[in-house]
């Protein structure tokens, strides 16, 4: 169901405003209003982050007197956590792609009788509540000494994206014509060479999409941060925000500044890598 749409989403180019009919301009206006309503909370977060410390909540509609105090506090409190999030998310991308890309290729190109079964297992895996995984991992990590480690968080966070990455990349790799793979095989390339130097370069777009989402999923992770870390040494920023919220919130501008900083990956990727995000959203709906 998601496979066909995956390829076509985002390919439609919208024309400029010039040459639009009156009716179309009305639609544009309605669209802008809908967007303003939907994205108001995001605007409000940015607005609140720029208010002087203290009574941020009574902020005006616009940051007429922008103050960076919230950001200064956020960076001094949470800068370390932001870097932790960055390391963990980058690690999760590598683990996730390293595991998912070969599997996606195999499920797309090799003929196995059990492929339907494997895909079913992947779909079901995505539906397992995170708390179930956290429950079991906590006990296992405790025995293995993996609590409060980067490795522990990275491999756990990869669970947010491995099934998704397999599905997205497989959908794409199914469209690689077997003849170009066979041509490489005839030239004497082994399975790994064929995969590495033919299939992977051809699938670049799908790999970027899967990688971006692996990053965003790990960056957004809250559950594993909450359950698999017990000290402040390795604390992703999502947990940092939660702890800001847990105590009576005294400094809203710092909370909101941290929230803005934690939103940057999503906002930046949506602006510069819109094509990949739109493509992934369709396959990612099975997140």
């Amino acid at each position, binding site marked *: 169901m998601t496979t066909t749409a995956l390829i076509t989403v985002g390919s439609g180019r919208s024309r400029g405003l010039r040459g639009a009919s009156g009716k179309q301009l009305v639609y544009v206006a309605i669209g802008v209003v809908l967007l303003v309503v*939907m994205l108001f909370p995001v605007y409000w977060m940015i607005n609140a982050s720029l208010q002087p410390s203290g009574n941020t*909540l009574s902020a005006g509609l616009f940051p007429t007197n922008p103050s960076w105090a919230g950001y200064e506090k956020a960076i001094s409190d949470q800068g370390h956590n932001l870097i932790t999030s960055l390391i963990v998310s980058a690690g999760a991308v590598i683990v996730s792609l390293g595991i998912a890309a070969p599997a996606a290729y195999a499920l797309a190109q090799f003929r196995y009788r059990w492929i339907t079964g494997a895909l079913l297992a992947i779909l079901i895996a995505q539906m397992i509540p995170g708390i*179930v995984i956290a429950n079991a991992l906590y006990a296992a990590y405790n025995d293995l000494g993996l609590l409060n480690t980067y490795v522990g968080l990275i491999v756990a966070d990869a669970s947010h994206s491995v099934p998704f990455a397999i599905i997205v990349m497989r959908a794409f790799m199914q469209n690689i014509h077997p003849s170009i793979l066979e041509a490489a095989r005839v030239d004497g390339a082994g399975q790994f060479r064929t995969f590495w130097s033919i299939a992977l370069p051809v699938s670049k777009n799908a790999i970027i999409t899967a990688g971006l989402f692996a990053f965003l999923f790990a960056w957004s992770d809250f559950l594993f941060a909450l359950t698999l870390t017990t000290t402040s040494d390795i604390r992703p920023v999502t947990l940092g925000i939660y702890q800001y919220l847990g105590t009576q919130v005294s400094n809203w501008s710092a909370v909101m500044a941290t929230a803005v900083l934690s939103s940057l990956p999503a906002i930046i990727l949506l602006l510069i890598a819109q094509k990949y995000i739109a493509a992934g959203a369709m396959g990612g709906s099975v997140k």
Partner: protein
Amino acid sequence: MTAETIRRPARRRIRRDDVAKLLFVVPAAIYILLFFGYPIVKNLTMSFQDYTTKTFFTGEAPWVGISNYVTAITSSLFGPALLNTALFTAGSLVGQFVIGLGLALFFQKKFPLSTIMRALLLLPWLLPLIVASATWRSILDQDSGILNRFLGVFGVDPVPWLSSPDHALIAVIIVNIWVGIPFNVTLLYGGLQDIPEELYEAASLDGATGWKAFWHITLPNLRGVIGVTLVLGVVYTLKVLDVILGLTGGGPANATQTIAIRSYQTSFVDFEFGVGAAFSNILILISLVFAIVYLRSTRKPVDE
């Protein structure tokens, strides 16, 4: 003789090739077994054991039969949590779906900038959920939150969104609807795009446009996608933790306790891992029912 000599090396090469091919799926298979298979089994065994913090020191987790399930189900919070789970899921789903379908239908119209607008609409879904919680907590603040200030313009008294047990569940549902709208728009928009234009053209010849076309062309053709959207919505809403923990932590006065929150708090606040596992298995059981419905509905197009 010739046949033998030719076939033997060939067969060996094929065998090595088979091993190479299998190596492609081995890492994923191991990973899925460890991070999805093992947790399910571990939760199942834990739920029949007296598994607490003590277990981590002594290594002992005596078998206790179904007593964890009895504890979970007879606990005073089980009934309310189950009811809240149902209300939270149903409320979120109805809101997300109706608004999502409306937006998807709107964006089906061809107008400039619609592609970029649709992309920007994804933002609430891409943000970390805890960011959404933090932002909405400030918006919903009773005394000086912008929502109450806005409502105040129309003479509405300040609503204690997050601090009153009567309003908290509605508040977390509103936030979860906001988070879930992009997901619904994306799926439903994709489904709408797949309906052939000719169907509408043929219908308009018969005089069916507007609402008539929606009822007789759009809805019937969208049925499969609607089913998938709703079932996935249920499965993903059942396991929501971040939104509720960030907004209310299950309070006030347990007004936003759900089965997922119960599972988390029993395991990681009370450190009763056995009972927590029992809660999460109940959650799995509920999800499983909907997962089966989902798999049935997605299977059909594959068979065709």
